Each structure stands twice: as C-alpha cells, then as structure tokens.
C-alpha cells in the first residue's frame, strides 16, 4: 500500500475537515428547519379573547401542552444539537492539530543570510560555510545526533541554495517551480485516518460497511416506504381510510358519520389493552341517560343508539361512546374516561377530513355537507342537530332550550344576537339560566366570532366581456366579516363589490403575484395575508385555524359541480388593533373551467366555515355561458387593437373559434349575479336558444 502515491492522513489533519463538511451539510439545513418560524397556526394567529374556563379545563390544558410538546420536533432538535457539537469538536481538532505544511524552500534561510544580500556577499558567505560544513572537514558529533549522512545532506542543501542564487539555470527552476530541482511531484492525500487501512482493522471496517449498507440502508428505505404506505394523504392510517370508504353511504347522516368515524384504527392505539373495555358500562349509561334538550344526554338519535347497541364490545364501541360523550359534553365522573373522551375528538376530526375526501370523490352533495357539519360539531363539541347557541361559553343544552323556547328550528348565533338587547337578556339571564357576568362573557365571545357574510357572488373571465364555453372562469365571492350582533355595520360600498381586472400589461397581477399598487380600490396596509383568529373551541384540545370552503353544487342532480376551494387567509385585516371588526370587503376567488356548451347553468354556491356552526351560506348563482360566436359579434363593433387577420394571433383565433378574430377588450365583465328571487329553477340546463345577455344589469 505504501507503493501508491496516496498518503493517508496520519497526523489526523484532514479528516476533521472532511467530517466537519459532511456533518455541516446535514446539520445546517436541519437547523434552518428547526429555527424557521413555525407554520403552526397557534403561534401566529390571533385568538378570540375570553376568560371562560370549561369543565375539566385542566385536562384540556394538559392535552394541549402535550400536543405542543409533540409538535416541537424533539428528535430534530437533538440531532441538530448533536450535529453542532460534532462540528464544534471538529473545529477544535482543526485548530489544535499542528499542520505540517511543507515549508517553502527558501535559499536565503538555508544559507542564513538576509534577502537583500548582494552576489558578492553570498559568495563569500558560502565559502565560509563550505569550509565549515564540508563533509571532508567536519566530524559527526554523536552528542548532537549527527551522522555522516545528515551532514552530507546538509552540505548538498547548502550547495543547492547557493546555486539557486548564482547559477542561471537553477535560478530559473527556482523561480518557475519554487524549487531548484525543477518541478516537484505532488502527492494526493486521502482524508481518512490511517487506522482504517492498517492490516488488522480490515475486517472491522468491512463489518461496519456491511452494517451500513446491508442493514441501515434497507432499514431506512423500508421504514420510509412503509411509512408512506401506512398513512393516507389526509394523514390518517390507510386502514382507517379503507374502513371509512366501506362505511360511506349515499344517505349517510351526521350521526352515521360519527359512527363511521369510530371504525378508525387510530382509536385502537389510544385505547390499548384494558382501556378498550374499562368503564364502558358506565360510559354508556351516562350518554344514554335522559337529556334535557334531547332524548339522550349524548345527543344521540334513536338510530344512533341502535347503531351503538348493534356493535360488539371492544374498542369500536368504546370509541363511539366516547365520541358521543364528547359531543354531548357529558361529565363521566372519572378522570381517565374524561381524558379519553377529550382525546377522541382530535382523532375523529382527522378521520373526518379523510371522510370528507372520500365523500368528495363520490361527489354527492348530501354526504359532503354532512361531513362538513360533522367537522363543525366535533370542533365545538355539539351533537348533530343541537342548538348552535351551545358554541357560546356557559350555555348548556337546558339554557339553549329555554332561550329557543318550544320551537322546532334552532336559533343561529346571528339570530340570537340580532334579538333586541333587553329581550335577549330577559330570555337568557335568570334563575336556572345564565348569571349576569356569564351572559356578558357569552355575548362578548359572540361579538368576536368571524362570520363571513356573503354580499355578492358572480362569475367572470378575466379581461373578457362574456364567458365562452370551456374558458377559465373565476368565481368571485365578495363578503364581509360581520360578527354576530355587530352594531353600526357600514353600508356596502358599491365600488368594493366590483372586481376590477388588472391592467393588461400588469403581469404581476395577472399571474397572481401580489400587486404593488392598484386603482380605484383602497389597498391594504401590507400585502401579508391576514389570518383569521383561531377557532373558538374551548373543548377541542388542539389549536385550529378555521377554514372556509367554497364549492358549487348542482341542485337538480344532487351532485357537486365544482369541488371546494379552501381559504385560510384573507387579503384584508379582519379586526383592527382593538379587536373591533373592520368590516372590510374580502374577496375570495376560485377558478374553474366553464362547461363546454353554451347555456344558463344554475348552481347552488355553498360557503362553509369548518369551525363554527350556523355560519354557512348557501345561495343560488347562475353561470351564463355564451356561444363563442356571439361574444365575437358583440366585440367586433369595437375597432381597437383588433389583430390583423393575417397576423399569427388572428389566425390562431380564427382557428379556435371559426370566426373572424375579435378585439381583445378590457371591459367590465358581465356578471350574472342572482338571488333566489330572480333565478328560475325550472330553466333548462342546456338552454342554448336563450342567448340574450343581461348586459342591462350594470
């Protein structure tokens, strides 16, 4: 091995550098990922202020804390710390290890004269030295550890140095290559410590290599692969997703979804061993006890009770019972059971998102809506079909029932808050009802909840006057955040309701980049998207940022027409610094492809907030798709910027539409907005004969 030109790192001067680099490549990106501002909504989003403490608040708090600890990515932090420790140690090694850099060959140093010495001085000095050190003259001195050979070498060095300064050729060599003998060979070093390749250690090295390649690598690849196989896209176990798919039914109700969610395999992990059965009898007797507002305390319907009782014992039955106990806010009188009850909700919420995805794949409207409502119920710990008033602190089913009176339909929060102040107070405050401070807390919370009230919804194609078949349509929803019971809500500014197209040359805006300055509209103070406050859900043990889903359904077929677009942030502030609502007009935009046939399409637009009950909007909208030729006719009157017929753009257009090229005009689009009164539900979907457009609407 010594025969090769490779030299190993015997002094250990390079391998610290090598290890430092390798560890650094791993550690530095990891450090960034640990330190970067977390996307966790709990960290940045505002909260709805309330000093209400629900029952078992301590249990809820401990679970929230445990979750936060879990989110802190402890493993990653430990890896980063270890990485930095290794890097620091390696840096220390680099500094401490004396580096044996080959000295630069300097003839002046060897001769022991100054750099400025003249040729004569050099010559005389060399003569003196050669008299003294010539091997014939000097005797080796054993005391100084000299041998004949070393003396000889030293003399050769001296001669070389002298020649380098006097002889023309050697001097050239010195100048060119830094050495009087000409070009020096260079050696390649390997930054591995020598002990790796010394003879006896070979088998250990092979062992380590085999362990790395044969055990660790397959293990890592395998665990990654099976890890991805185990979880579905919605971050639930794939087996749970399979079960949910099997449980899907066109006619499923919210109660049915709750019982479907109990098939989740996740519950088997949280209810392991003896937890699977313990306390089931007590649990069931509690939830099936007579409730104040519903037949059962858990809020189950007769069908749900039947489903629960049809189940065999075991994890599924307990999970379902716990879910109903959570929804009914039933006190279980046992810390372990209460804990399990609170733990069940986030699991069910995650499973429900998987169920939503499944329902969306089937495309039938009713199950999709039911699954969104289930998400709201789970978030707010309210059984299906119970009063939305329970979302407010201190409200119990009995109080909600007293407030609502004997009516069959429930008061929504906004209806409740729209009641005249004194009447509302008289309904809610009293003996067996709320106390005065409790009532104030409830009203305060209600006045902070973000309810998105839709003011207008319409369709348009950016930069076009008509919507032609198969074009990319933007659905624009304009709405304001009006918390229930808001007073002095300003009138709608008509300007705000219009959606102004960006300038044609404003590429930033067209491509959806944040624009710097617009026209006509007030610009937000900063372009950062505004987060709504975290969902006010005192019983749910996770921080959750509410989401708004907008989708279109076809009411005649009961199918979804345009899948949901989800909004988590908004373009304008919702609350000012003092927490007062700003009533800014928010714009939600979603794009989809227009139908390939011209005609009037009536859709039902749903806007659903997945965290609050009773804040959903449902309205009818009509999408008017014009024949392509009709749009051309109308625009042909304009003679601005009409592409030449023989220009490329013109020909392309002629090919596309089979009509002479139209002018590309920037005008306000025809917005077909309609509320129930003006939309005609008997209208045929494929009504191509009706081609008149409602241009007079503007």
């Amino acid at each position, binding site marked *: 091995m010594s025969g090769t030109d490779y030299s190993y790192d015997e002094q250990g001067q390079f391998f610290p550098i090598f290890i430092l680099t390798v560890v650094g490549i791993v550690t530095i990106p990891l450090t960034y990922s640990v330190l970067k501002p977390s996307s966790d909504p709990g960290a940045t989003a505002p909260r709805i202020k309330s000093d209400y403490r629900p029952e078992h608040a301590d249990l809820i708090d401990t679970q929230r804390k445990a979750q936060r600890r879990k989110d802190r990515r402890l493993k990653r932090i430990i890896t980063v710390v270890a990485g930095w420790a290794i890097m620091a140690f390696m840096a220390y090694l680099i500094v401490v290890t004396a580096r044996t850099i080959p000295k630069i060959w300097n003839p002046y140093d060897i001769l022991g004269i100054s750099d400025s010495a003249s040729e004569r001085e050099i010559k005389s000095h060399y003569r003196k030295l050669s008299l003294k050190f010539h091997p014939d003259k000097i005797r080796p001195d054993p005391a100084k550890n000299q041998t004949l050979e070393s003396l000889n070498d030293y003399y050769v060095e001296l001669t070389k140095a002298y020649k380098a300064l006097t002889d023309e050729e050697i001097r050239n060599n010195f100048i060119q290559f830094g050495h009087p003998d000409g070009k020096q060979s260079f050696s390649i070093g390997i930054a591995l410590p020598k002990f790796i390749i010394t003879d006896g250690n070979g088998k250990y090295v092979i062992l380590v290599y085999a362990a790395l390649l044969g055990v660790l690598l397959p293990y890592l690849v395998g665990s990654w692969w099976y890890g991805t196989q185990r979880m579905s896209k919605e971050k639930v176990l794939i087996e749970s997703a399979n079960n949910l798919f099997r449980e899907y039914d066109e006619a499923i109700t919210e109660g049915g979804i709750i019982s479907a969610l109990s098939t989740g395999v996740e519950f088997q992990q949280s209810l392991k061993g003896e937890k699977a059965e313990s306390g089931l009898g007590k649990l069931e007797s509690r939830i099936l006890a007579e409730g104040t507002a519903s037949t059962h305390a858990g809020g189950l319907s007769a069908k749900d009770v039947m489903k629960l009782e049809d189940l065999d014992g075991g994890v599924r039955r307990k999970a379902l019972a716990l879910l109903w106990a959570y929804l009914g806010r039933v006190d279980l009188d046992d810390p372990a059971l209460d804990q399990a009850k609170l733990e069940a909700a986030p699991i069910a919420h995650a499973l429900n998102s*998987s169920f939503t995805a499944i329902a969306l794949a089937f495309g039938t409207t009713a199950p999709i809506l039911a699954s969104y409502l289930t998400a709201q119920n789970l978030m707010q710990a309210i059984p299906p079909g119970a009063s939305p008033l329970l979302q407010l602190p201190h409200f119990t089913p009995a109080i909600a029932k007293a407030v609502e009176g004997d009516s069959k339909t429930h008061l929504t929060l906004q209806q409740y808050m729209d009641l005249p102040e004194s009447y509302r107070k008289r309904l809610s405050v009293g003996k067996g009802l709320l106390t005065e401070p409790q009532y104030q807390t409830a009203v305060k919370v209600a006045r902070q909840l973000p309810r998105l009230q839709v003011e207008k919804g319409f369709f348009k194609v950016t930069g076009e006057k008509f919507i032609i078949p198969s074009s990319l349509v933007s659905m624009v929803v304009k709405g304001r955040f009006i918390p229930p019971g808001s007073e002095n809500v300003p009138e709608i500014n008509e300007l705000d309701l219009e959606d102004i197209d960006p300038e044609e040359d404003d590429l930033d805006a067209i491509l959806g980049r944040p624009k710097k300055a617009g026209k006509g509209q007030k610009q937000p103070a900063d372009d950062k998207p505004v987060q709504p406050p975290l969902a006010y859900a005192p019983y749910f043990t996770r921080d959750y940022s509410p989401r708004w889903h907008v989708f279109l359904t076809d009411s005649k077929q009961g199918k979804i027409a345009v899948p949901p677009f989800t909004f988590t942030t908004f373009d304008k502030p919702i609350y000012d610094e003092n927490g007062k609502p700003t009533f800014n007009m928010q714009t939600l935009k979603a794009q989809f492809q227009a139908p390939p046939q011209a005609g009037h399409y009536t859709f039902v637009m749903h806007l659903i907030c997945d965290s609050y009950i009773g804040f959903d909007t449902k309205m009818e909208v009509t999408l008017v798709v014009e024949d392509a030729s009709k749009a051309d006719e109308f625009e042909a009157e304009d003679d601005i910027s009409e592409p030449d017929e023989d220009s490329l753009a013109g020909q392309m257009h002629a090919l596309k539409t089979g009509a002479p090229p139209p002018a590309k005009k920037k005008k306000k689009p025809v917005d077909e907005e309609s509320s129930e009164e003006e939309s005609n539900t008997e209208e045929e979907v494929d009504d191509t004969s009706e081609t008149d457009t409602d241009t007079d609407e503007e």
Partner: protein
Amino acid sequence: MFSVDWWGLVLPFCYITVLLGSLITSSSMYRKRKAAKSANLAPWFPPHLQRNIYLSLLHLEPEEGKEKAPAVPDSVLRAALLRRAQEDIFRIIQIRSAKQACSTLLQRGSVGDDLWQRFLRAEKEMEDELRDVVMEANALSPNWGQHIFQSANEIAARHIFQTRLDEIQAQTEPEKEWWEKRRASIQSEFMKELDASTSGAGKASKSASDEDTVMVESANSAGGKSKKKAKK
C-alpha cells in the same frame, strides 16, 4: 493450460451465492406474504343471505328416514331467485357507484391498495353471481334470464321508495304531538293575556304584556331581516 486457483475463487462465489440467495428469499417471502394477505382480505359484502336461502331450497337434504327430499314448489323457488336477484341489484348499484370514487381516491393516495384489491374481487364475484342467476332463471323457466333483472330492479326500486316513505310517515306521530303541545302552550298564553286584559288587573301589567308582544314582533322582524341579508 492455465491452472485455476479454485480455493481463491471460493470467496467471490460465496459472495455471489449469499447475495443471490438473500435476494431470492426476500422476493419469495414478499410474494408469499402478499398472496396470503390478499387471500385473507375481508370480503366486500356480507354473506349473501338470499343466495344461501335459494341454494338450500334447491338442495334440500332428505329428512331422516325418508328416501326423497321434500319437493319444493316451483313458485317458492322462483320467489327465492327473485329475492336473490333483488339483493344482487343492490350490490351492483353499490359497486357501480363506488368504482369511480375508489379509483380516484387510490390515485390520490387517500385509500390503500388493499381496498382496491378487495373491490376488484367483489366486482368479479358479482359478475359470476349475475351469470349464475341468469342461468338458474333460464333453468326454471325458458328465457326468464333475459328479464329477471328487469323485474328485480323494479322490486328493488320500490323497496327503496317504501323505506323512505315509511321513514317519513314515522315522523308524523312526533310531529303531531309537538304541534298539539305547541298549540296548547300558545292557547294558554293567549288565554292568560285575555284574562289579564279583561280582569283589568292593573295598568302596569297590561303595559308590560303589551311591551312583550311588541318585542316579540320586533324580534321576529329582525330575524327575518337578517335571513334576507344572508340570502343576498
């Protein structure tokens, strides 16, 4: 000739055998496991009760001490087959509606491969089942196979309709009860108000009750307004 150092080649050969051996074992183990898993997949549908009834009617065991099995009337057999076809219709509808959703969800990674395997197996089983029913029908009476599913479909549709109707009808009693109660409470309130005004119990109480009604009205109108707003 050159001589081969066979002993020196032992090591490389060992290496190759170990490598190939481990690859082959792991691959065969993987396959076996997969096969076992797919064999153990839970069936998509629960046991087919109607089919079992039909088959047991068809192959009735002779009672003890008797030579021949009791003869099953043809009409009973036909009814059982029709029942079986009706259940098949439900299953076909389920499979047809699930197919599209299942494949898109599988592509998106929202459900697992197991489910798809189970689904495909159920689909195949259904095909066989349908063929079997048609053959049985033809055996019972010529050419019945061509329209047995048509009649089964109509029966199934009626069944669905009937259950829906029953569900709705079941609600009438509680609704009636609720309305009776509601009417009684409203009536008693009115009576109270009437009593209060006729007996002239005092101006204060009267004005208070007046105020009440006004408030209720304004509350209703406010609610109505907000509803309208929500619709717009």
